[in-house]
């Protein structure tokens, strides 16, 4: 469980009201990974969504292109919200990292039950991704739109 005040800090959850955050707070968990650790392997079933609390990440796509994330609030593993899906990129910790994690299936069930909340989360993820990944392939954008 992660306190609501902590969740509110992050862009993808910023628009949620206290009631919605309370649901997420109960589902959220904290996790850590070490420098050099592969957090997510492209192609494997996407089961977890990660929000970066602290540390630095590299998101590497199968074609060799990559981006790095250095600020808290970076989201990785969004494929977990598009079921059934595999991760589209690998994520490696460049430094020791801490994350807030959500089980993809639980989060998906929650956003399917609460359409308003789901729309807010998906819209924010979409916003973050399109700003971060101008080279994101059209098929990935389509998958995200379908999951909305």
């Amino acid at each position, binding site marked *: 469980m992660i306190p609501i005040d902590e969740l509110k800090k992050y862009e993808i959850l910023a628009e949620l009201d206290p009631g919605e955050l309370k649901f997420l707070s109960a589902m959220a968990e904290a996790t850590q990974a070490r420098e*050099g650790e592969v957090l997510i392997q492209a192609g494997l079933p996407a089961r977890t969504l990660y929000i970066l609390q602290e540390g630095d990440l590299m998101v590497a796509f199968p074609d*060799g292109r990559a981006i790095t994330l250095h600020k808290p609030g970076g989201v990785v593993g969004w494929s977990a919200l598009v079921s059934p899906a595999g991760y589209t990129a690998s994520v490696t910790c460049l430094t020791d990292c801490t994350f807030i994690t959500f089980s993809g299936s639980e989060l998906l069930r929650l956003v399917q039950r609460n359409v308003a909340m789901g729309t807010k989360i998906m819209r924010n993820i979409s916003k973050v991704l399109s700003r971060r990944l101008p080279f994101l392939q059209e098929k990935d954008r389509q998958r995200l739109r379908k999951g909305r």
Partner: protein
Amino acid sequence: MGGFSAISAGNGWLIAALGISVVFFGLASLAFIITYFPRAIRWWNDHAKSPKYTVQLLRSLFSQRNKKATIRADTREGHEPGELDDVEEALRLLTTHMKEPFKLPRLIEVAEQRGLARVHSNINRLLVKGTMVGGTDGLFRWANGSENANHND
């Protein structure tokens, strides 16, 4: 005198054993060379395009290997003074033969194969410092002197 007596008298057993050993070690050496020959050719194709480059690369690798054991002893501790400069120099050498802009995952992979110390965190330090920058195309390049911005946040 004939037969086994003659062989013994003429050190035949010793000569036979010596002959077997020579042939065995010859064949073993040949097998070893054949096994590693493709790797040597691949390494040469990938990295040794000029003798000057080879000398520089070997020098950087040996200097890194000496430090590697102490640096890796405790990854929780901070980095050693001067480590970043050494790693940057080695990475610049490695990227000499990659088309710039280069792919960061590939650079990390090659740097790890070469035994560079704490590749991930050192590359991160270069990114944060702005020495290495990522483009919106997902490829990375070395920044020019005064350029000091990281475009990846």
